[in-house]
């Protein structure tokens, strides 16, 4: 188990390193000279360009620059934003809160809506209710979050203005109120994903022999549904929820843009638009870190749920 974990962490570290390298090289591949990219919208004077060459060590070889940047990044120092000259870590952490709250809420929506609906669909497999749930899930998956978000804005902002549709609000209550629609817009697609995965997993479990055998021994319905069905469905559900957390990342970008939420997603779009390279680099690294953390978390949960995985012994 430890070995597996160590292996996982090693792979994660490798992934981060690779992403960091690719992200760093991205700047050099961007059109236009490095200086102009790093200049942003400032009037270029020869002194300023010279300043930038020095500040970013542009006269050093590429690999050296990368290593220097990497060393700084390891201390969470990603330099300063070209646009605001704010320290990048500060800028990112200031905006991470809203994104985290949005993600948690959307995840809540996805889990509380998706898991029961998926289980219900499996329980009523083939019947009208199942077909309805399955079709809704397909529609939910096919509807991009920005389309759902725009629709929600139209419905609850323009037609029946009952909920705030912009900004993040102040204070916990207000914040929650502001996040309801964004979280719904993001959560619907995620819930659809969970529904499909849960349904498939539950269907797989429902016609397992051990369920029949449990019933044949006269075990109570509650026990069969919890200990038997749910526990064995839990593993695929946990991994699908992990997937949801990862899919939520790009989804959040779109939703934050639609609802003008000051989160890391909208920061990403703004920075990409403004070619604010230090911010883009940091966000890319943080995204990769997030992916790694989620994946490792899912792995750990799987190990907790399914001891079979602990020593790699299959069945």
């Amino acid at each position, binding site marked *: 188990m430890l070995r597996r974990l160590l292996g996982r962490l090693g792979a994660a570290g490798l992934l981060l390193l690779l992403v960091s390298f690719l992200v760093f090289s991205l700047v050099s591949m961007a059109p*236009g000279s490095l200086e*102009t990219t790093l*200049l*942003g*919208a*400032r*009037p*270029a*004077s020869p*002194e*300023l360009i*010279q*300043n930038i060459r020095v500040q970013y060590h542009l006269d050093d070889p590429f690999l050296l620059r990368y290593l220097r940047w990497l060393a700084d990044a390891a201390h969470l120092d990603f330099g*300063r*934003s070209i*646009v*605001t*000259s*704010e*320290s990048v870590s*500060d*800028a990112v952490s*200031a*905006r991470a809160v809203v994104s985290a709250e949005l993600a948690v809420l959307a995840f809540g929506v996805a889990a509380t809506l998706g898991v029961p609906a998926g289980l219900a669909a499996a329980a009523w497999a083939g019947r009208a209710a199942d077909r309805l749930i399955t079709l809704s899930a397909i529609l939910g998956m096919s509807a991009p979050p920005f389309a759902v978000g725009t629709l929600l*804005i139209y419905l609850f*902002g*323009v037609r029946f*203005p009952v909920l*705030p*549709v*912009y*900004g*993040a609000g102040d204070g916990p209550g207000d914040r929650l109120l502001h996040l309801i629609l964004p979280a719904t817009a993001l959560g619907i697609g995620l819930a659809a994903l969970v529904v499909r995965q849960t349904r498939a997993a539950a269907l797989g479990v429902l016609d397992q022999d051990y369920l029949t055998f449990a019933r044949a021994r006269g075990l109570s319905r509650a026990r069969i549904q919890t200990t038997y069905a749910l526990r064995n469905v839990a593993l695929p559900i946990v991994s699908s929820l992990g997937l949801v957390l990862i899919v939520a990342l790009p989804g959040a970008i779109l939703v934050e843009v639609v609802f*003008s*939420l*000051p989160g890391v997603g*909208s*920061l990403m779009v703004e920075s990409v*638009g*403004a*070619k604010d390279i230090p911010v883009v680099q940091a966000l890319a690294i943080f995204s990769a870190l997030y992916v790694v953390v989620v994946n490792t978390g899912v792995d750990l949960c799987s190990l907790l749920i399914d001891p079979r995985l602990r020593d790699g012994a299959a069945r």
Partner: protein
Amino acid sequence: GTTGEPAAGQQAPKPIDSFTYGIPTPPSSLDLTKNMNGWTSAVAVMVTQPLERFDSAGQATPVLASKVTTPTDTSVVYDLRADVKFSDGKPLTAADVVAAVQHATDGAAGAQTASILTSIKDVKATGDAQVTVTLAHPDPAIRGSIAFGVLVSEADAMKRAGADYGTAAGLPVGTGPYVYSSFKADKVELTSNPAYQGTAPRIKKLTFAGFTADTTAQLALRSGAVQANYVNAPKTTPQWKSIAGATVYSTPSLLSTYLTFDTSKAPFNDVHARRAVAHLIDRTSLARVAYGDEAQVMRGMAPDAEFVPLAGSAAAVTAFMSGLPQVAYDPAAAAKELALSATPTGFSIDVPYPSSEPFAEPVLLSLQQAAKPLGITVNLKPQTFIAWATDIYMFKPAPLGVFQIGDLQPDPNGGMALMVTKANAAPTKFNMASWTPQEIEPLALTMTQSGDRAARWAAASSILTAAAEQLPYVPLFAPNTVLVYGKGYSSSTPPDFMAFITGAWLDTLTGNAA
């Protein structure tokens, strides 16, 4: 600042607990030198005040300065007010002002304001409460530029903050009626400055909130979440007007937009090719597409308002501009002009443009359609505003480009003057047409440096006439500034762009929703 007399409203001014002003883009930095635009200025002047401020008629009101004099063509002397203290209690000194000027002119450190302050050679404290700015050459517009570009903050605090200055970690400390209480990506919150010497502002808590989309801003104003808003797309004005209780103020601005031809290269080194393209643009219709009814089609190379102080009256400017030759939308005439040009069968050009600006894409798409039958292929190259602006600053003119310039004072020196002469066909200058005829040089010199108003106006009108004939630019639109006040609020005089960016709007605010 709010040093002026409070508005003579009918009702007694009641304090307002909280007031939110919606703006299209929240400041990315509270240091104007890093983020030079009207919206940042509107926020920053509430805390860090200028030495003096101008209104759109060119009238100056002193703010931190008690007196401003120009003893010679190349020097400006500011006498500072004695009683002014920063919000942390320290008194304002001449050294603070000198530091602010130096900060604003430090192009090597990336100060964007440096580009409008190029004529400054030196700045010195010439007394305990006196600062003298020395110019490299005469610049009649320099007071306006300093009024906009130099915002005074406490020098020690600025130094301490270092690179963080202007970020949430290094909030500027100023003398204004407000202090910053929070600075987030989507909004800036200010609270009234208890140490402020002037009349305490009516609004206790003032928030500037960013709304990228007008739709959401409208929803916010409707629901009472914001009390005033700077309309991003003037085109949406009718929608704003339909909001119950809202008052819409629409005033001419100093913003102007152009098509630019690179007159130094083929095909647009040929005036016929330029005229052909100009004939293909239906400016009247496009004005409506881009701005609704909220823009004027420009008749000369700069908006009329820019010349009013020079000519002495708006009527004089209007009379002159109406006499300038115009190139009307006329595809047949375009075909004829093209036939006369060096490229009678047409050509193909790439046009880079900022996709975020409302006028550019409609104009170019329309041109693309109209030009196709003549054999002119227009390839659209959308860019982010920043990428586009970088190319402009680096002086990489496109054969055919779009351009917009927002003047900050009604004087051609901040606008048209930068778009002519050889010296301005260079990085950080804006002669995007590379339009450098010999006869323009002396005219431009007179216009920019003469102390004689009449001589300046004569020179300006000659340049306008030459530009109308040679057509280095196709002047497009001068959109209005549209400000909306929500239910319960209004303004005793219509607030215009200058009132917005200098904070003068606070003095004319009337009403109270509470």
